């Protein structure tokens, strides 16, 4: 049995999305900007996809901008918010320490261009509070950008409350909802957000396609200059097949969303219950405030890459925030932001399941992970020191 438990990294393309895409990869090759009927059929497909995405998140179709993925949507949202602020002399940005690099690196770039960035603490449980956001807002704050669901640990942020605080203080609010859309109810009107990013490949759509929701009235800055596509805000001939696939996958993901959430939460709870029985392990991130499918644990005395390679050999695809996995000397910035010591963060494991996973697959994970952890501990000098009492357990 080979279990794919890395759905937070990317997901398999849904057969329904593929079926919806195929015509636009084969006969329907039109350019949506062309006046002839071939092009107009493409334009129609594009419009239908926009309507679908808008309907799912409760937006107006004119508020949806298709992009080349989640990163581009994040870049565009942050640049738009920053530029809107800068025009009024506001050059302060607020975010958190555990955002995706698409957000953090964009903020870093803006910092080098004279913006000031405040990164809020995410605490031990990986959740920021609206009060802390309120306290960080200054008269010169242009934008607050805080992720909906953290990609590594799965914690959910109080997006509605944060949006309310921002609106009261007249500050734009963007949320990177790449890990939320298709997995949790997301209603931009009820939430009151100004901008929201999503990516198709996190909910069984194709890679390289995403969308940015921008509330009407918020000025949008281009990341890609070009023609009049996306109302002039994103140049380039549209990826019709990808966009159509995104809409089809999203529609499928939110059909019986509640049922899916209950089912996936069940799988996750089974994983947490089973794996936290491993001695000297800990669950990372808040126990309750988490997306249905993501679990992140640390196992003391072992290193994450070795764990991943063994799990792969034994039929489990997962991921880790260890330094050796990332190719840098530091473990994941997300785990460090939680205040985990390096030694512990190196032994992290992220399992992300979704509605495509089965009970049997979870049972396989529950059988394999403890075996591999034990094997690696038996050959670990760190574990040896802990066992002999020469070092003290941190977890």
């Amino acid at each position, binding site marked *: 049995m080979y279990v794919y438990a890395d759905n937070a990294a990317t997901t398999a393309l849904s057969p329904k999305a593929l079926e919806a895409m195929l015509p636009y990869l084969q006969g329907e090759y039109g350019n949506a900007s062309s006046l002839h009927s071939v092009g107009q059929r493409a334009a129609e497909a594009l419009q239908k996809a926009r309507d679908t995405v808008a309907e799912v998140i409760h937006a107006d179709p004119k508020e949806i901008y298709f992009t080349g993925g989640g990163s581009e949507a994040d870049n565009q949202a942050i640049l738009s918010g920053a530029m809107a602020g800068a025009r009024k002399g506001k050059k302060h940005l607020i975010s958190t320490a555990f955002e995706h690099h698409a957000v953090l690196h964009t903020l870093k770039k803006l910092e080098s261009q004279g913006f000031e960035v405040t990164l809020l603490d995410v605490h031990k449980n990986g959740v920021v509070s609206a009060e802390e956001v309120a306290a960080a807002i200054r008269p010169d704050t242009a934008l607050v950008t805080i992720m909906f669901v953290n990609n590594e640990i799965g914690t959910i942020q109080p997006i509605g409350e944060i949006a309310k605080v921002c609106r009261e203080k007249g500050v734009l609010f963007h949320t990177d909802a790449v890990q939320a859309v298709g997995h949790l109810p997301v209603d931009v009107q009820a939430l009151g957000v100004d901008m929201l990013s999503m990516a198709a490949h996190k909910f069984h759509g194709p890679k390289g396609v995403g969308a940015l929701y921008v509330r009407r009235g918020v000025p949008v800055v281009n990341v890609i200059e070009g023609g009049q596509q996306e109302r002039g805000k994103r140049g380039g001939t549209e990826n019709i097949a990808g966009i159509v696939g995104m809409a089809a996958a999203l529609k499928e993901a939110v059909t019986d969303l509640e049922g899916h959430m209950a089912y996936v939460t069940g799988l996750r709870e089974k994983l947490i219950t089973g794996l936290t029985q491993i001695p000297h392990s800990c669950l990372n991130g808040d126990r309750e405030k988490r997306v249905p499918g993501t679990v992140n644990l640390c196992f003391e*005395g*072992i*290193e*994450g*890459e*070795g764990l991943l*390679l*063994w799990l792969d*050999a034994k039929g489990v695809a997962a991921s880790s925030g*260890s*330094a*050796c*996995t990332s*190719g*840098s*000397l530091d*473990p994941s910035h997300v785990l460090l932001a939680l205040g985990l010591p*390096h*030694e512990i963060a*190196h032994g992290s494991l992220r399992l992300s399941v979704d509605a495509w996973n089965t009970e049997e697959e979870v049972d396989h994970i529950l059988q394999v992970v403890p075996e591999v952890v034990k094997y690696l501990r038996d*050959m*670990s*000098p*760190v*574990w*040896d020191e802990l066992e002999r009492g020469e070092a003290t357990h941190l977890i």
Partner: protein
Amino acid sequence: MALYSDKVMDHFQNPRNVGKMEDADGIGEVGNAVCGDIMRMYIKVRDGIITDVKFITFGCGSAIASSSMATEMIKGKPIAEALELSNKAVAEALDGLPAHKLHCSVLAEEAVRAAVKDYYDKHGVAYDPAIFGCDSCAHGHDQAPGEA
């Protein structure tokens, strides 16, 4: 393209000489848990020959494979020869390592040297301290080649 060569995967999944040694003549431990790789190497020495070697390693696939390969390369060899083992030789014997993983083979070389030094110290063997370089950069993780 796979991250690792077949040889690396073989030594990772079937590590040679893995385990602890109760009656070692020398033990060397290098690296630290903050960096993410630690190797401990045990050697048995008879008449200047390394007759047995064992290792335990906390670290990535590359660290475990490098430890395993290094033990094979020094087992049955005179100490003088073991001291000449370079991280480059270990990496080559593994059919290469990704550039950002070369530091893991550096640790293997250092673990061997640390074990020999421990043997010398414990058995009152005189040596020129210069052959072991300076203590402060014994684990060399931060200045590892291939790390930008």
